[in-house]
């Protein structure tokens, strides 16, 4: 099962091969062959062995460092993020649309071929999309004739030319062309493409890769790195395959073991966190340092406190001296003195003195409390003295003492209460302990029962909450009924109510619970209580019941995932950085390729390959049908995905008479065979008759082509 594949990191783009010498082609009018595919551009002279090629993508941008404008083609675009963003392709999905990018790409091609004459003086043969939109053709023609001044241009369909390269010129066959953004079915009889019966499915490798990316994003919502579409393309080509029978494959994957067996793990790059290992001595040293710091702080605080206290004492002494000196001064002098000290009058001075005194008293008390724990019981001597024996001040003082005494007594009571509670708890614990020691089995049963009851209660509450969110559920309807009857005031006529008072709502405390029940938003206090009790019980069970493991706790039970889900998407520990950067592919491996046979799975309302082939074949006679299926020819990049041939066989066999032999073959070189076929054809005599000349272009415009066996008819 441990089939971990590392996601390869892209290599920096290589410098293009040195340009070929133009000498042998200069003014030789060697045909120029261009396979303008939506992914790759392949170009070269017809006499070359194989084409030069590159990704059909250009980027025009300004380099940030030097502020220099740059123009990049193909892989070179990947050299910098800035270029990647600016990149444009001549194609928009399946349609050639962007003539600026096409011009840049063609420039690159002609520079690579070292063409150094005034014009591109070569007859050109170029591919175009099956039944291409005329707009695309006219913009291509315009560039080739007007910008590059080509003498003649012939257009052909790439998959037909790939068929031509792999078969004899008058062969029959059914071409299945797997392109980047579409898949086409083209019947060919006597070497001639029957384009009137051709069909195109708007689904290609790009859509499949997108679909895979979408599935991955849904499966791994919090993936630490961004999965790029280039990476999903890589996964599509390396890990995905066609299932000969998708339904039975899915049935075979029903068990977690089977799923585990087909699981493929893609390891994305990750950076492991380096954790510093600290020795015990180091830890001890750090703790010691911390303690030292704490002590220092405490000392400083204490020092500050004593300093403040001293300051206050001297202040008080000074003010007291000042007050005593009042008698010796004249009234004027006294006022002046007061004002220089910052007091308005005598009462201000008195207030300040009083405040200082009380501050000092408090501080001293605190110090005393810190020294000796329990302060002696304060005495309240005036409380028991009858009022009659007291003057006005005495009465005031008595009132104060009464209050103080009450507070003191209340505190004492609370303390006692607490002690009693603790005692009770201890007693209970002891009792339970005894019970446990006497009959562990019984105790465990009891505790587990309690846990069970609590968990059911919590679950029921959750269920009720879920039911309330559905307007039509019984619980929600009952709630609405309650609200209605509470709001409706027709239980008694108004007059009767005034006199009789027969409304007994509220007489029983439980009546009020109805308001709690109808308020769905309010958090229930029972819930918290249950949770805390559950936690306590679980703690006890964990401590004393050996068979009770952390897996039995409510928390782990609630977060438990089914085996199926955890097999499809195994989880990794939070700290496992390597694991968190992993993608598990299992059902996706076939699900993604299945879309070619039923695009509806991914939301494209179109027949799949099987159905389209059936429709196409239905338009031919049995004899022709036999000739076609004898040579089913696959071309284009995605046709290399594993399992396509068996799958097609399994799809075609049931829709054809049993005596018809089916033969499925693949292009020898899916990427370059179309170009080679074009190059071979360009060297035949026939080539001269299929192109549009400059004169014809001037006469009829860029949309007109000659009809021939390898080209479009529209």
């Amino acid at each position, binding site marked *: 099962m441990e089939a971990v594949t590392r996601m390869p990191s892209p290599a920096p783009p290589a410098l293009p091969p040195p340009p070929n010498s133009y000498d042998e082609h200069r003014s030789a009018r060697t045909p120029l062959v261009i396979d303008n595919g939506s992914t790759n551009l392949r170009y070269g002279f017809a006499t070359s062995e194989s084409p030069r090629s590159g990704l059909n993508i250009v980027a025009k941008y300004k380099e940030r460092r030097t502020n220099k404008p740059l123009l990049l083609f193909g892989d070179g675009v990947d*050299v*910098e993020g800035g270029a990647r963003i600016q990149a444009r392709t001549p194609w928009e999905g399946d*349609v050639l649309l962007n003539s600026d990018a096409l011009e840049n790409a063609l420039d690159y091609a002609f520079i690579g071929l070292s063409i150094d004459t005034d014009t591109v003086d070569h007859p050109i043969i170029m591919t175009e999309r099956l039944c291409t939109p005329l707009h695309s053709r006219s913009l291509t023609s315009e560039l080739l004739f007007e910008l590059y001044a080509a003498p003649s241009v012939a257009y052909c369909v790439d998959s037909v030319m790939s068929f031509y390269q792999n078969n004899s010129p008058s062969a029959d066959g059914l071409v299945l062309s797997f392109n980047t953004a579409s898949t086409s079915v083209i019947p060919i009889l006597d070497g001639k493409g029957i384009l*009137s019966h*051709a*069909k195109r499915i*708007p689904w290609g490798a790009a859509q499949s890769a997108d679909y895979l990316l979408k599935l991955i994003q849904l499966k791994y919502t919090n993936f630490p790195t961004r999965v790029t579409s280039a990476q999903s393309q890589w996964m599509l080509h390396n890990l995905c395959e066609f299932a000969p029978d998708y339904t039975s494959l899915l049935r075979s994957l029903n068990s977690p073991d089977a799923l585990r067996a087909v699981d493929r793990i893609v390891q994305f790059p990750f950076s492991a966190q380096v954790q510093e290992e600290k020795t015990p001595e180091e830890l001890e040293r750090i703790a010691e340092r911390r303690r030292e710091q704490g002590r220092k702080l405490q000392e400083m605080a204490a020092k500050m406190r004593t300093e403040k206290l001293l300051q206050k004492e001297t202040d008080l002494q000074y003010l007291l001296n000042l007050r005593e000196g009042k008698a010796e001064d004249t009234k004027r002098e006294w006022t002046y003195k007061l004002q220089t000290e910052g007091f308005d009058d005598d009462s201000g001075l008195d207030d300040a003195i009083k405040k200082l005194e009380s501050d000092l008293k408090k501080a001293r008390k605190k110090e005393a409390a810190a020294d000796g724990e329990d302060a002696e019981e304060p005495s309240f001597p005036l409380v028991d003295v009858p009022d009659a024996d007291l003057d006005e001040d005495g009465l005031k003082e008595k009132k104060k003492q009464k209050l103080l005494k009450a507070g003191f007594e209340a505190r004492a009571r609370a303390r006692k209460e607490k002690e009693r509670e603790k005692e009770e708890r201890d007693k209970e614990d002891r009792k339970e302990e005894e019970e446990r020691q006497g009959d562990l089995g019984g105790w465990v049963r009891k505790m587990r029962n309690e846990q069970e009851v609590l968990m059911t209660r919590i679950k029921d509450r959750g269920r009720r909450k879920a039911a309330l969110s559905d307007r039509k559920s019984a619980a929600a309807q009952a709630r609405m009924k309650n609200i209605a009857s509470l709001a409706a005031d027709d239980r008694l006529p108004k007059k009767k109510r005034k006199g009789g008072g027969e409304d007994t709502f509220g007489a029983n405390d439980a009546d009020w619970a109805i308001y709690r029940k109808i308020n769905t938003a309010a958090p229930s206090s029972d819930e918290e209580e249950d949770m805390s009790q559950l936690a306590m019980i679980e703690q006890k069970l964990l401590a004393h019941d050996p068979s009770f493991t952390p897996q039995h706790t409510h928390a782990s039970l609630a977060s438990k995932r089914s085996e199926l889900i955890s097999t499809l998407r195994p989880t990794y520990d939070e700290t496992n950085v390597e694991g968190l950067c992993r993608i598990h592919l299992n059902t996706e491996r076939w699900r993604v390729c299945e879309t070619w046979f039923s695009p509806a799975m991914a*939301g494209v*309302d179109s027949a799949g390959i099987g159905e389209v082939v059936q429709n196409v074949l239905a338009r031919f006679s049995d004899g022709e049908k036999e000739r076609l299926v004898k040579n089913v020819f696959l071309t284009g990049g995605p046709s290399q995905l594993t399992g396509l041939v068996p799958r097609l066989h399994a799809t075609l066999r049931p829709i054809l008479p049993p005596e018809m032999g089916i033969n499925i073959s693949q292009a020898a070189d899916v990427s370059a065979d179309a170009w080679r076929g074009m190059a071979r054809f360009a060297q035949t005599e026939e080539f001269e008759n299929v192109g549009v000349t400059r004169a014809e272009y001037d006469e009829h415009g860029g949309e007109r082509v000659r009809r021939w066996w390898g080209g479009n008819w529209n």
Partner: protein
Amino acid sequence: MPPKGFQRKKAIASDGTSTPQLPSLAEQLSYLENPRPFKNPNYARKTFRRSKNLKAVLTQERERERAERERRRLEKMESGMEVDGEEEDIQTYTSIEAPPSLLPQKHYCDITGLEAPYTDPATKLRYHDKSIYELIKGLSASAVKDYLAARGVNSIVK
């Protein structure tokens, strides 16, 4: 366009040589300054080319197909139904598009990809078994929407 840009860029490059530094990989890969003698310097692009988007092109194509069919029909009527079946149908980009599928659609689990015998009435998600149903119940509305969108079902906002 490049011919005129070409000269301008050259001027900038000669200014920059005062600080000699190795050209970056991107600069080495750039072919902006390679000479392009084969291009017609007097070529002026027909302006309408740029503004067309995919939708417009496809609409135009469909329109053309319709007009063509109409023309053919008129011709046929004029010539009195004599020459039919002679010329093969000319196909256009839009007419060769595969029709919608007529086969019954199989249902697959939106979460796992396995067979899905059930559909959740609340979210309309298809699911494989009860453990997946438990998972669906815990999904947020936006997650449900994403799952449905992957199948091409776009929920209508009421």
